[in-house]
């Protein structure tokens, strides 16, 4: 079996991830922040470990400015719904996932106006197009760091510089890059960074969050969810300090225990080493697929400008049929279709049929890439016959 669906969720996870989660379930089990007994404090230490690891990953100095959510989507919603009032204007790009587009379209119905900065056919973006879209009412610029469809990396540092120049909050969706591409919240001019725990960070599903830069004023950001935090229990109003303002209800501590283990694994191994490995696989995959007659590869086709998400199509076949055949005949797991990103597929010119996406990960081998390429070659030959 060959798993090439790491852009959806990474698998397998390092053994230490399940072991740490199992240890929490067996030996700790308590809820953090609610009680003062030793198990509750131990749970709180796990949550602090997770905040510190994320802060270290993105160059944030204060770990309490890391907020945990169910996933990157919830973190993105928290910012967009908490920041954008009727009459406000927001800018995004032509390469976004529905985790950005759907909240924006819903806000549009409530009087927020949206500009979508166009991208090139390979998914790249000229930061100047963001600058040109700015209006006096612009209150947010939100972009994904890399496309979940074809891996194209957007120039977030340059876009962030534009945002800084105009004093507009800059939100980055790092779902596809955290753990496999360098991110520095300060150098990259990011105010708010949404991340997921279960992809490049190798944690379990149900983990994600938001890193809030030091100089971002949280007074302008309304919580998405209100409720118990374990703090200020005598008050019926939400605490106004971080992280409690945005973390109501019992958190996913078993998930965070796994996230800490996954993230420590990534940090110990080193981001650069992971990136080099994935670039090597991506190069091999793109070159292999590109050489097959009747196969079209989308995006930049340059591993230095994209993550390890490679989208392709075989002429005359449907994406879902290709993926089904890859699963049934070759035991290769991948994702066909529109990848929850119609906006990106519109830019790539792959609407309405979509593409097939191969997304190798940290544990994928070159031999597996070669087998996947050979399988696609066989399926493509089938068309020609």
């Amino acid at each position, binding site marked *: 079996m060959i798993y090439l669906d790491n852009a959806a969720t990474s698998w397998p996870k390092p053994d230490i991830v399940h072991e740490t989660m199992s240890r929490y379930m067996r030996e700790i089990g308590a809820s953090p*922040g609610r009680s003062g007994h030793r198990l509750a404090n131990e749970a*709180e230490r796990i949550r602090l470990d997770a905040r510190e690891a994320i802060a270290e990953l993105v160059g944030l100095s204060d770990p309490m400015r890391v907020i945990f959510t169910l996933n990157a989507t919830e973190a993105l919603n928290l910012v967009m719904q908490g920041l954008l009032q009727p009459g406000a204007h927001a800018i995004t790009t032509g390469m976004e996932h529905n985790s950005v587009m759907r909240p924006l379209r819903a806000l549009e119905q409530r009087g927020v106006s949206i500009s979508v900065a166009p991208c090139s056919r390979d998914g790249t973006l000229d930061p100047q197009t963001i600058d040109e879209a700015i209006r006096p009412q612009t209150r947010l610029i939100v972009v994904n760091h890399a496309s979940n469809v074809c891996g194209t990396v957007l120039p977030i540092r340059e876009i962030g510089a534009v945002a800084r120049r105009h004093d507009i909050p800059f939100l980055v969706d790092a779902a596809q890059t955290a753990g496999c591409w360098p991110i520095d919240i300060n150098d990259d001019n990011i105010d708010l960074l949404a991340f997921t725990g279960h992809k490049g960070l190798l944690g379990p599903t149900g983990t994600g969050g938001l890193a809030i830069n030091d100089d971002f004023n949280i007074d302008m950001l309304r919580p998405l969810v209100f409720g118990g935090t374990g703090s200020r229990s*005598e008050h019926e109003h939400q605490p106004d300090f971080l992280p*409690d303002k945005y973390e109501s209800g019992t958190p996913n501590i078993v998930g965070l225990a796994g996230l800490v283990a996954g993230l420590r694994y990534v940090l110990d191994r080193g981001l650069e080493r992971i990136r080099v490995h994935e670039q090597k696989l991506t190069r091999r995959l793109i070159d292999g697929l590109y050489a097959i007659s009747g196969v079209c590869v989308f995006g930049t086709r340059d591993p230095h400008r994209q993550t390890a998400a490679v989208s392709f199509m075989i002429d005359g076949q449907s994406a879902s049929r290709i993926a089904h055949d890859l699963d049934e005949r070759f035991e290769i797991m991948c994702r066909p279709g529109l990848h929850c990103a119609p906006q990106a597929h519109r830019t790539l010119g792959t609407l309405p049929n979509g593409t097939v996406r191969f997304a190798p990960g940290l544990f994928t081998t070159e031999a597996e890439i070669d087998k996947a390429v050979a399988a696609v070659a066989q399926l493509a030959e089938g068309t020609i016959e």
Partner: protein
Amino acid sequence: MSGFAVILVHSTGHAVQAERVLKRAGLTVKLIPTPRHLSSDCGSAVRIATTDRDRGADVLSKAGIAIDRIEALDD
């Protein structure tokens, strides 16, 4: 007097963070239930030796951890 002070912070999460930061600075501290007469909060606070009180406050301030109050701890 017990020879201890208690540092109250915003939440149990901050108490655990304060404990960690103070321990990293080489200070001996312990998490204790927040004394009811000092706060209605149901969480934890940090106990520190009275002799370390000023240094502890300084370490927390440098780490950006907001202190609600520091009080002498009765026996």
